[in-house]
């Protein structure tokens, strides 16, 4: 089963929910995978403290032009929508590999077979274990824009028999779509502030467009206002959990510790989310 933890707004507590859920599910004897798809800024490792056993570089194809073969037709530059390859005059062809999206168009339209794919390193996949939790994270190379490609690689590690917990990047753009795609259920973590609500609405729109079942977790409950709750009620969106605003949670978080490990009174809350997810799976299966 695949659970994606998303939020829209950054800093609402995706990683807090994801890592604590991983801990509780693992403690309940479930086989758990934690996949950090927030590849521009993976931070689940700070809390799970995994032993990284394997690091693998991920490459994508970028064009390499053999100017001796180039006939100067300009077709490569015409097909490229990202200006990653640009034809100036005669056989003056420039490539900007960082802008390439690896569509392969330039390779295919070149009548002179002058363009070959060349591997471009976009980042690393680091995998290992945190106790019994299987840990996988992507780490995008500085300057690379290939977030989606790296997230795809992280998700290839998902095993069918595991509870795969996917830590999704913030926002509502392509990397988020890629990270939540194929999830059995999405937990949307929000905070009860106008900022949290604004981005929650955008993210609800996103998961609805993707036809993904979802529920909301209100973190830092007690701050801000009641608009997030009112919105959920009006939109018939289920609230799976309200996690109170508690300074001790913030302190635990900022010292890189897992809440359920330090503040045992919150074990029940995360256990409730875990149960909620287990039940929702049954409910989804029933609906089908």
């Amino acid at each position: 089963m695949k659970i994606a933890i998303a939020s829209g707004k950054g800093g609402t507590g995706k990683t807090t929910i994801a890592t604590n859920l991983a801990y509780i599910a693992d403690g309940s004897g479930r086989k758990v995978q934690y996949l950090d798809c927030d590849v521009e800024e993976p931070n689940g490792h700070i809390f799970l403290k995994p032993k990284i056993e394997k690091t693998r570089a991920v490459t994508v194809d970028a064009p390499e032009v053999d100017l001796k073969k180039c006939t100067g037709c300009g077709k490569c530059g015409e097909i490229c929508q990202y200006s990653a390859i640009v034809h100036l005059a005669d056989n003056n062809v420039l490539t900007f590999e960082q802008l390439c999206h690896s569509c392969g168009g330039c390779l295919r339209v070149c009548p002179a077979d002058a363009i070959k794919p060349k591997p471009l390193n976009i980042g690393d996949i680091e995998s290992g274990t945190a106790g019994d939790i299987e840990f996988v994270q992507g780490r995008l190379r500085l300057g690379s824009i290939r977030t989606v490609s790296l997230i795809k690689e992280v998700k290839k590690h998902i095993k069918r028999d595991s509870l795969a917990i996917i830590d999704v990047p913030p926002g509502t753009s392509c990397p988020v779509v890629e990270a939540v795609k194929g999830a059995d259920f999405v937990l949307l973590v929000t905070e009860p502030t106008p900022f949290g609500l604004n981005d929650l609405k955008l993210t609800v729109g996103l998961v609805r467009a993707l036809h993904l079942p979802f529920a909301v977790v209100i973190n830092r409950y007690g701050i801000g206002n009641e608009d997030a709750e009112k919105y959920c009620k009006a939109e018939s969106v289920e609230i799976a959990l309200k996690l109170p605003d508690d300074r001790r949670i913030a302190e635990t978080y900022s010292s890189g510790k897992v809440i359920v490990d330090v503040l045992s009174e919150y074990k029940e809350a995360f256990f409730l989310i875990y149960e909620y997810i287990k039940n929702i799976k049954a409910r989804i299966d029933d609906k089908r």
Partner: protein
Amino acid sequence: MKIAVTSTGKTVDSQVDPRFGRAAYFIIVDTETMDFSAIENNNVAAAGGAGISSAKAVIDAGAGTVLTGNCGPNAQRTLGAAGVKLYTGVTGTVSEAVQLFKSNKLAEAAGPNVQSHFGAGN
């Protein structure tokens, strides 16, 4: 000799657009006759690669020189590859910029003067 000036409008009386890749127009001026034509820039709202595509547009228009406010590294590399001379930090109207250029009062840019995406938020 043809030069390209980034412009906020369609004539030589328009202000120089401080952005290269996302300039509203490129005014192509013949420095001998002062005849000019305006090219509307299709890259104003491009998601990325605006500088490169804009450089390609002015190169295709036959300009050997670019006068603009700011130019990033990708556009600068593209212009340089085609042998186009680049002058940054240019302000005033297009016609004033051309006069400064003709009287050799502009200094050629040694490289890009801003980072990529500098003009994207303007």
